[in-house]
């Protein structure tokens, strides 16, 4: 049962990878091609996910939409891991007063939910795909800083760093050898889980009309366009959302054993 779930999740992730890199392998259609003779057709053998109000094939658009929908999350998580990891580690190993300031600031960020922070960035920069990408990144960074800081602080006082400095290793080098690797492992675990919520936030912002503009085949935009057809054609909104939900479920299913491995890896160090 567990293995079936893992295999299914791996298959979904593989499919997504192909859709991002080589969408033409999965569909022969054009995501932007309109066809006035095939408007709002329900799912069928010819159009697996039906067609939308302009006669575009929804399956083709879901496949081509994977790139824009997922890249934004990958980029946000990568930047958050690097920036959040650096800030958090520095705070964790720095003198007490630096850590005080950073942890106070972190406490305060809890009062502003991720989605609101992303919205604020968009309010400043205006609508657009870049604002959404930056907004999502800024929104998730506090969580990464928090994790890096806690991990670094625990390791800093675990004795290894002190032992190394007594043996003549410089402090930065001791931190790099004994603190950084485990902070990175923890961040990787958070990043895998955080990827899911990052793509959902990004798609949510596009859905609200703040990101990429139509007719780009991005999942959030597709759902926003299909929203007005809900009474007549459920499939336009259903399938992009299903793709999004399936991505998150697949990634979290794969993340569980991975995280366990990362955790036990730490224990052996």
């Amino acid at each position: 049962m567990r293995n079936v779930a893992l295999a299914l999740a791996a298959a979904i992730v593989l499919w997504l990878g192909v859709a991002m890199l080589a969408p033409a392998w999965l569909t022969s259609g054009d995501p932007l091609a309109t066809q006035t003779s095939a408007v709002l057709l329900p799912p069928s053998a010819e159009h697996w996910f039906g067609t939308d109000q302009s006669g575009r094939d929804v399956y083709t658009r879901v496949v081509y939409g994977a790139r824009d929908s997922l890249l934004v999350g990958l980029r946000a998580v990568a930047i958050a891991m690097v920036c959040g990891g650096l800030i958090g580690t520095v705070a964790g190993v720095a003198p007490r007063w630096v850590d005080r300031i950073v942890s106070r600031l972190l406490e305060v960020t809890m009062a502003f939910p991720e989605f609101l922070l992303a919205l604020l960035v968009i309010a400043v920069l205006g609508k657009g795909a870049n604002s959404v990408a930056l907004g999502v990144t800024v929104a998730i960074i506090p969580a990464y800083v928090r994790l890096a800081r806690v991990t670094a602080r625990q390791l800093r006082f675990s004795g290894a760093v002190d032992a190394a400095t007594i043996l003549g290793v410089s402090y930065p080098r001791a931190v790099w050898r004994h603190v950084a690797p485990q902070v990175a492992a923890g961040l990787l675990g958070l990043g895998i889980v955080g990827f899911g919520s990052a793509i959902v936030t990004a798609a949510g912002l596009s859905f609200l009309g703040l990101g990429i503009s139509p007719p780009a085949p991005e999942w959030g935009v597709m759902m926003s366009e299909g929203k007005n057809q809900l009474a007549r054609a459920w499939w336009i909104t259903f399938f992009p959302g299903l793709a999004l939900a399936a991505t998150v479920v697949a990634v979290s299913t794969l993340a569980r054993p991975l995280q366990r491995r990362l955790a036990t890896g730490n224990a052996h160090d």
Partner: protein
Amino acid sequence: MTLSARTRTALRGAARFLGEAGLVLWAAVTLAFLVLKAVPGDPVDVMLGPLSSATPEARAMIRADLGLDKPLPTQYASHLGRMVTGDLGMSYQQQRPVSDILTEQLGATMALAAAAMVLAVVLACGAALVTRRGWLRGVADATELLAVSAPVFWTALVLASVFSYQLGWFPIVGGTAAQRVILPAIALALPVAGVLAQVLRHGMDQAESQPFAVTAMARGASHRRLTSHHLMRHGFASTLTLSGFLFGSLLGGAVIVETVFARPGIGRVALGAITNRDLPVVMGVVVFSGIGFLIINAVVDVLARAVDPRLRKAADA
């Protein structure tokens, strides 16, 4: 005058809360100021919009009126002063005080959030109690993973599609207030319920293996009594650390759910303000978010004391 130890602890707790409250509010107000200052371009141009034909002289006058010609520290000081007196400024779009606009919409969002919260707690308790063992547990794990993973806007649209359009049970337009709140509340509640159920069940599992659970059973407590008097209590205590997550889901979710179901509320006002770059309203939402977070934290603190006797002891000592 000598204070009892108990009063002193209570006073210290109150002081800590006030300190935290002050810090959060200061941060909210400062964040709002930074947002306003970070916007590229001239604030008066943003305020008037691209279509305005105001002369440069008129623009200069507005600038002087708003104090925008003064140095930044002075502007920040007067911004702080206004916020302290509860003046959140005027909406660019509606030419009305921001605090009026937001308080008008607050009720609708609170009703939605409260309905969602009650629903989430009921669903989570039910799921955690019924599905602790056996094959049901596997089903619950999968369902909860789906509930947590599915984007709110997707569940909202699926619910609307099935129950409003296909079955016609809950009309999107018309209907009573109670009918109109049900679908949005379900959409908002599902991810919250998923997380709550997982944490609740985990907390109960942990409590069950502790010595006090064995003691209670040895004293002759039935399994039902053990669950209702001891395990549930522990499970709840572990859910109370989720206040930040809860607040974020409800506020962030409200923006989306209110848009999908065309409900009035803070979320919709926020979205409109961001789309039209009505910055005073955006700032107002930031300040309201800070206040909302503080209220939730205070409530959770009180609940934690009610649920976990060890915290009460610590306060009395």
